[in-house]
């Protein structure tokens, strides 16, 4: 039984084109599900639809988002927000803008526990210290008194990870959490997310465009093109024998750093044409 189940989710620009084309996917408890695809494929849009943070300019037309069997889209917005606040969390892409510059770090972790989940303050603060230690921050007490601008990008991403796990969520959406960091820090952060996820048994929806990251951390993945899932499979099968031509081309396009003479391989035009034809076919069927 999957924890998060998206069924035929259809998202459109208000008065405009389709952004997600009948997307379906399942994330089991404690599973890491990767969402890959090129820019604009709708990876982040899925995460936003789940968390209820879609921009005002888009709307969910049809479909279901089932969280532990409850259809989020059928709920009253306020009740939905409470449920998501209690069970889900977000690890955002850019650690530099994801902490409020006007507040100290400590309250940013604890306030939400206190104000929204009604924890006693002392318990929330103990929890924050514990989690900051868990994400390998040496002096949690001192860091909690800092303003975000006093800390490095890597530190801030650690804090955001700690903050995401603070309320013991069942599902975390990680929206390209390592993209804004440099490569050495990326690796550390990735390991950290993985370790935290395993320890807490959290389901993780991991948005990325980096197949290398997917191979390290995910159990399943969905490949998206133009808001359509072209392949949904487990990671081992995907890397051994990708089914869809677009997936194969994507995999072939991964740079090989071991061979300096090897130039970058783009996704071939023919493959793009194939997948575009599929999208058009899907649109035609949806219209009919």
């Amino acid at each position, binding site marked *: 039984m999957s924890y998060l189940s998206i069924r035929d989710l259809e998202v459109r620009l208000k008065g405009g084109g389709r952004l997600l084309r009948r997307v379906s996917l399942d994330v089991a408890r404690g599973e890491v599900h990767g969402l890959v695809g090129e820019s604009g494929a709708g990876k982040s849009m899925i995460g936003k639809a789940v*968390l*209820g*943070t879609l921009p*005002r300019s888009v709307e969910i037309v049809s479909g279901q988002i089932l969280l532990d069997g409850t259809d989020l889209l059928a709920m009253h917005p*306020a009740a939905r*927000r*409470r449920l*998501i*606040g*209690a069970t*889900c*969390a*977000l690890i*955002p*892409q*850019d650690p530099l*803008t*994801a*902490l*409020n*510059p*006007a*507040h100290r770090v400590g309250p*940013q972790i604890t*306030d*939400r526990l206190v*104000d*929204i*989940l009604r924890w006693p303050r002392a318990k929330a603060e103990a929890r924050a210290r514990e989690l900051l230690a868990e994400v390998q921050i040496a002096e949690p007490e001192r860091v909690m008194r800092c*303003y975000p*601008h006093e800390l490095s990008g890597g530190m801030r991403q650690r804090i*955001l990870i700690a*903050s995401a796990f603070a309320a013991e969520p069942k599902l975390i959406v990680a929206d390209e959490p390592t993209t804004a960091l440099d490569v050495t820090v990326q690796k550390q952060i990735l390991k950290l997310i993985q370790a935290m996820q395993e320890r807490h048994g959290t389901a993780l929806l991991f948005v990325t465009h980096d197949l290398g990251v997917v191979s390290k951390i995910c159990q399943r993945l969905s490949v998206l093109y133009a808001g359509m899932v072209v392949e949904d499979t487990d990671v081992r099968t995907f890397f051994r024998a990708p089914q869809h031509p677009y997936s194969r081309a994507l995999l072939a396009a991964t740079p090989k750093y071991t061979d300096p003479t090897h130039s970058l391989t783009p996704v071939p035009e023919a493959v793009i044409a194939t997948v575009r034809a599929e999208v058009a076919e899907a649109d035609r069927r949806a219209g009919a």
Partner: protein
Amino acid sequence: MLDGRGTIRHKAGLRLWLSALWLGLLVVLALGAPWIAPKDPLAQDLMLGRLPPFWVSGAEPGYWLGTDSLGRDVLSRILWGARLALTVALVAGTLTCLIGATLGLMAGFLRGASDLVISRLVDIWMAFPPVLFSILLVAVLGPGLFSIIAAIVLIDWTRFARVVRAEAMTQGAMDYVASARVAGRGRIGTMALEILPNVLPTIGVLLTLEMGIAVIVEAILSFVNLSISTDAPSWGGMIAEGRTSVHQAWWVLVFPLLALFLTVLSFSQLGEGLKDRFDPVLR
């Protein structure tokens, strides 16, 4: 402190302290005007008309900055005028800020219908020439302290609304807002607890600027005789009187003008200084 921007910080500090010093002095003088002012600001003595300030020959002891054509003491009138100027600056500035910033925040963060209404209103409002609009308002409302304040608030709220709206939109697009929403904060809660603290430094600068502008508007209105009662001391009124006799008695014009200039300059510099000091991002 010796960080990479040591010199910049030093300058910002100096600016802050100089402007705060002048404004603080002015507040003390205005509050203490009844005791400090050497003469009655309304007392006329035609025998002592157009006395020069104390360092010019022909000055009369006790009249430090000279007298105007009706023999009223210029220094005492400046001190009493400061009461009016500062009252208008504080009350009108604060009210304008509260109304404009609230509307701007709503338009910028809530967007949708509230943005549509508020922004169109701002556009229409800004099409009126502000000085003429204020003169018209005071003419309709009748002269008096209340009318001056009402006119300033009614005209200048758009300044806050515009800037705060833009700032709130920028902040609203940041990831920390999304995080707060996911954590379960409502729209109003997010606006008040996440966005507002980040817009506050801008609001602070605008507020001090607005106080300076309020002083100018009050001076303009009293210059055209639409402020409080005509013989009550006000800087604008003194400048108007001084203008007519500038060739015989320049001091009647120059001293209130100087007070006005320094006050407005100090308000704007105070805002900049405070921003440099308290903006968490710049700090």
